[in-house]
């Protein structure tokens, strides 16, 4: 059972999609329930992922089969302390997003459920794939369901938004494919056989001049997905046009694949390039933080505001990743989860008023706290999480990232400058979010259309409640979450530093020894070229 747990997690939604496809179209109630129930089963199954041994950095629930042996393509999946949380985030948010969608989506229920289930399978697949070919397939496969969700069930400009989303992502990922082929080609030159196995490919030492291009191609694909400034322009369009459930998944899970891609693939494969471009990317991340915040401030459309806030928040995540110390990277990973929770909840809540008023224009509202007290309370709580108030999850993540950046050696000589500007982003976040809250809930109830609005319903509360619980849970007890990711993160950093050291010494194309890419193997390689192993990398967060 355990040996196939990840495969089960990937195939269960696909199976469910087939079952849903055979339920008669008229039985809308059954369709809705079946899809959600299957996702809950999936959530329940994914819970056993926590049983893995996360005290080591090695992959858990590893499964490997040959797929296309001639080309070294295999089906290899595994999970570590980093992907664990992202998979759990996916399995938690997909049912919530679908459940929330059922409040608004009432055409072509069946297709919507099928698209969502396929999307879930592809996202989980992308998070657990350890073979780059497999990863690429899941990565691309995510596009189609999301394209359809935006394009069919979205707002008035949906076709434009869907095509833009698709093309942006596709351009990035196709260039990544070429870079990937190049790496595989280098591996083949050195060993005589092909392999797409991440651990195998990580052993290739690539000359700097080549590496910079390859890293650039990977980074572009992931930066578009994150999205980093200036590749973010598809995001506001896609978010505003997508139906509520689509926005939730897009923001909460799909964007994380970009940041995850940096940690899992781009940086371990090309440490030298990542090292030299790291500060530049950090600068862009900080620009993104501030730019996203300013854009969010001036938005009239609440959904667009949340979309731009994502640009800002993911800037933090990128900054944390490129601070390259345990505190910063752990903060970044935690912040990925946090952003999923708080932005997911925000999109659901925005969906609630949109359902009632069919507008999201801030000027149309005001004084809603009087007619919708429960809704206002929930909204404010989620806002606090998004802003990063102490006691909520957002605080932990942002604090760790800023602390990590402060102590960062990768961003020398003045990591403090990064912190200074990023911290401005925190303040701006408070401004734009509280500005939105002010416009929505406080002040006089000036617009007569708002006088008879119903308060948030039970079903909507059910959708948001788990997320609110998590806001405080992570806010007060982040320990267990961080504990499980620490070994993987420290392994990520040490292997990165060690490979960097080797490549800094001598970057002629060759293969590092060692099987399985375990840290000890890379360490042995370091010892062989007689280089003192790097000392403590950065401080605690």
């Amino acid at each position, binding site marked *: 059972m355990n040996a196939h747990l990840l495969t089960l997690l990937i195939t269960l939604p696909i199976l469910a999609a087939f079952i849903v496809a055979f339920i008669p179209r008229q039985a809308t109630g059954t369709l809705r329930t079946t899809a959600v129930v299957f996702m809950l089963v999936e959530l329940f199954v994914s819970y056993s992922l926590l049983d893995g041994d996360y005290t080591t950095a090695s992959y858990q629930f590893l499964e490997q089969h040959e797929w*296309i*042996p*001639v*080309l070294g393509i295999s089906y290899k999946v595994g999970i570590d302390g980093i992907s664990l949380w992202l998979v759990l985030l996916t399995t938690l948010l997909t049912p919530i997003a679908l459940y929330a969608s059922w409040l608004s989506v009432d055409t*072509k229920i069946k*297709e919507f459920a099928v698209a969502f289930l396929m999307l879930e399978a592809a996202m989980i697949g992308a998070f657990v794939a350890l073979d780059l070919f497999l990863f*690429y*397939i899941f990565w*691309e*496969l995510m*596009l*189609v369901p999301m*394209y*359809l969700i935006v*394009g*069919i069930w979205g707002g008035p400009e*949906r*076709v434009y938004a*869907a*095509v833009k989303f*698709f*093309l942006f992502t*596709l*351009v990035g990922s*196709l*260039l990544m*494919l*070429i870079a990937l*082929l*190049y790496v*595989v*080609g280098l591996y*083949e030159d050195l060993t005589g056989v092909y392999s797409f196995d991440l651990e195998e490919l990580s052993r290739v030492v690539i000359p700097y001049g080549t590496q910079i291009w390859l890293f650039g191609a990977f980074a572009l694909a992931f930066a578009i997905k994150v999205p980093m400034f200036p590749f973010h322009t598809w995001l506001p369009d896609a978010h505003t046009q997508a139906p509520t459930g689509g926005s939730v998944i897009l923001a909460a899970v799909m964007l994380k694949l970009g940041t995850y891609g940096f940690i899992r693939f781009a940086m371990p494969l090309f440490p030298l390039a990542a090292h030299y471009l790291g500060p530049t990317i950090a600068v862009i991340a900080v620009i993104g933080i501030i730019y996203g915040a300013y854009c969010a401030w001036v938005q009239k459309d609440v959904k667009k505001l949340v979309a731009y806030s994502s640009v800002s928040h993911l800037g933090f995540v990128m900054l944390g990743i490129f601070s390259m110390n345990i505190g910063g990277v752990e903060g970044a990973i935690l912040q990925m989860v946090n952003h999923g929770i708080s932005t997911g909840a925000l999109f659901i809540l925005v969906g609630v008023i949109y359902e009632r008023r069919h507008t999201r224009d801030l000027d149309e509202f005001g004084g809603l706290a009087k007619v919708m007290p429960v809704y206002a309370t929930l909204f404010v709580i989620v806002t606090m999480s998004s802003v990063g108030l102490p006691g909520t999850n957002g605080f932990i993540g942002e604090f760790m990232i800023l602390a990590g950046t402060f102590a960062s050696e990768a961003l020398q000589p003045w990591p403090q400058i990064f912190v200074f500007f990023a911290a401005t982003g925190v303040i701006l976040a408070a401004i734009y979010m509280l500005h939105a809250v002010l416009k929505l809930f406080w002040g006089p109830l000036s617009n007569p259309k708002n006088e008879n609005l119903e308060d948030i319903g039970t079903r909507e509360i059910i959708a948001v409640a788990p997320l609110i619980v998590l806001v405080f849970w992570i806010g007060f007890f982040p320990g267990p979450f961080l504990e499980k990711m620490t070994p993987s993160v420290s392994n990520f950093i040490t292997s990165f530093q060690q490979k960097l050291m080797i490549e800094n010494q001598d970057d002629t194309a060759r293969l590092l020894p060692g099987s399985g890419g375990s840290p000890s193997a890379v360490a042995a390689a370091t010892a062989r070229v007689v280089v003192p192993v790097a000392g403590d990398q950065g401080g605690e967060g």
Partner: protein
Amino acid sequence: MSALMPALPLLILVVGALAMMLVDAFVEEKAELALMSFWIFVVAGGASVGLWVTEQVIEVPEVMSLYLATDRMSLFFDIVICGGGAFSALLAGGYLKEHALERGEFYVLLVFTAFGAIILARSVDLLSLFIGLETMSLGAYAMAGFRRTSARSTEAALKYFLLGSFAAALLLFGSALIYGATGSTNLAAIGTAISSGEAQLHLAIMGMMLMIVGLAFKVSAVPFHMWTPDTYEGAITPATTFMSVGVKAAGFAILVRVLLVSFGDDLSANAETGWPPVIAGLAAITMIYGNFAAVGQSSVKRMLAYSSIAHAGYILVGVAAAFRAGEEAVSAVLYYLMAYTVSNALAFGSLIYMGSRGKEAVSFEDLAGVGRRHPAAAIPFVLGVLSLLGFPPTAGFFGKYYIFNAAVQAGGGFVWLAVLGVLTSAVGAYYYLRVIVYLYMKQPQAGAPVAVPMKSGYVVVALILSSYFVLRMGMAPGTYLDMAIAAAAELVA
């Protein structure tokens, strides 16, 4: 008899075609010629598979082996061309009946065209090459003009005929020069003559260039593509299907064969001089032009014509890389042609399926809202365009991946060709997605006629079969990949 075994697929086709002519003439009830031609193709293709599997070494009489190859690559192309023919026969079975064009000649022409295509793909001599080319082309001209009452169809045939003859003349001229330079018409002997230095090199190179131009016409590479959009659009769709898969496959087969067998020496095939830079240049402009021109089309059929030009560009990338990445590149070309055959059959088949009598689905507008009204008809189309777009897990994705892999492995400037390839595929995504946009996200204009899918078992079978292969070749390409590699290995070795 056993000496004729390697030519068994050809014999089956030609005997079958003759039999069909008799059946068409003497059987009143317009017997199911579609079904008959489908089975002829299946049996001929099956014979090739049988020859492949048995791996018998048969003493081939010289009179045949001097003109026709009996290697794995020819068997591979037998299978691809017969496959394309089988799909076209099924599609014609539905299309001709639906649009009141049911005349038996079409199927006979189809089988003869496929016969010519196989001769072309198999030929190892300039003479058989030309005979194959003309047999194939004459059939294709006639098929293009099959709808005699339509001006578009006639224009299609005439344009194809005139430009095709022109191309054939260039090819013939090139052959003459090559013969003059090397004193031989046999491809291998030409190669020996050139590499041993006996040949007059400048003449041979000139001849090679003329042959490349002639074949570039057949595979519709830019700038020799002018006939393609009009012909593909004007011809009846089953004929277009076969032209875009079978004829194109045969063109690429002989292009690869001529370039590698006759001009595989170091002087004619290297990164600076000879054919690789020429083919690479053709590939680049073909990919760019084909993809960008397809963006502006309002007719799906015409869009698919430009898409077929674009795909010729991708395949040319593999051909260009063949001088260095050898076996890998050739097998990529072979695999791609197979994947393209099933994907294109699926896309054209879906387009045929959308149109019923008196209302052929041609433009994007015709597709509006079909996904809502007839979900079952729309799904194969989506699969087809995703495969043409090169999206996992379809045959098209794996084919494209493998082609670009060959280019990247060839290194040097070919990496940039691969980058150009993926960037232009992203342009391609735009127009392929438009199909999905219209199927699912648009509604027909008020008062506009509403497309109703036809009812035809043949077309349904063709769609199911091609969908199966599109998915199979994308998800478990192992078997087909091994075939392509084995076929390529024999040629390159």
